[in-house]
């Protein structure tokens, strides 16, 4: 089990599906950001798993490098996204995304 690529990839796929459900279904903007983090973690798990099961000599290290880059980009995304949510909250006084309807009227 722990020596098959499929187990890790299926775990990553389930985590991605959970994150996509949260992103589509939650009303709170911060919950949606948390769901995006879940999706990014699923993709990261699949990247590392592909690297660890590669047949070339340096594939594993390259996969790890790519996962580190993804983590840094996810940190940047969380910073900017939460700052945007806080800025919108200061204007609209609500964290619920279905009440952000200024561009609909």
């Amino acid at each position, binding site marked *: 089990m722990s020596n098959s690529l499929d187990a890790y990839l299926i775990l990553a*796929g*389930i985590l991605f599906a959970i994150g996509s459900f949260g992103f589509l279904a939650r009303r709170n903007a911060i919950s949606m950001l948390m*769901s995006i983090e879940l999706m990014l973690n699923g993709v990261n798990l699949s990247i590392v798993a592909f690297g660890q099961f590669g047949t070339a000599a340096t594939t*594993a290290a390259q996969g790890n490098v790519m996962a580190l880059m993804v983590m840094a980009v996810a940190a940047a995304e969380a910073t900017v996204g939460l700052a945007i949510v806080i800025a919108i909250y200061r204007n609209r006084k609500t964290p619920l995304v279905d009440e952000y309807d200024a561009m609909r009227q």
Partner: protein
Amino acid sequence: MMRTLIGIVLGLAILGFVTGIAAIMLIFLHQDWADALLWVFGFVMIFAGLLVVTMRDIIRCGLAMIVCFGALAGIYVILGAPLIAAAQVIVYIGAISVLILFAIMLTQTKDAPSRLVFQSQAIPAAIASVIIAVVVALAIAATDWHEATERVRVATDALSTVLFNQYVLPFEIVSVMLLAAVIGGVFLAKREPGGPS
């Protein structure tokens, strides 16, 4: 008091279930520790992920997200990438979760409607995500990946050799991008002196 008791009993039941899975795998199915730990960590990760997207209290969602990321760090260790696991603990549990918890504390009002956590499109979203999971699992099972039969363990010195020889330029670009993101975040979240408080 009652709710605390129910929480303790539920936690103990989950713990017993998880260790039961591991014990059955170890003793009766004669598999090794890595398999049993992979089952345990995978179960904890998916359960905590489901709690993140379904729980009502958003602070608890954030705490369940920490549990989910911790279990994922364990999976990285089993997979043979200890540096990624350490970075997962430091970056996700240490930094991003704390950032999200602070943002939750800054944006929750007392009269926020706590009963409606889902939008009206929740049921189609659930159906779509189940379809995503099933299709991805089928595609994974149907594909021959030509993978190695044994997973590789990455030593940290080999990883750093690759990172600082081949990938110096992406490393520097990522560090500059992080600096830009920090400056942008401070600028966006800054309170304007004349604006609404």
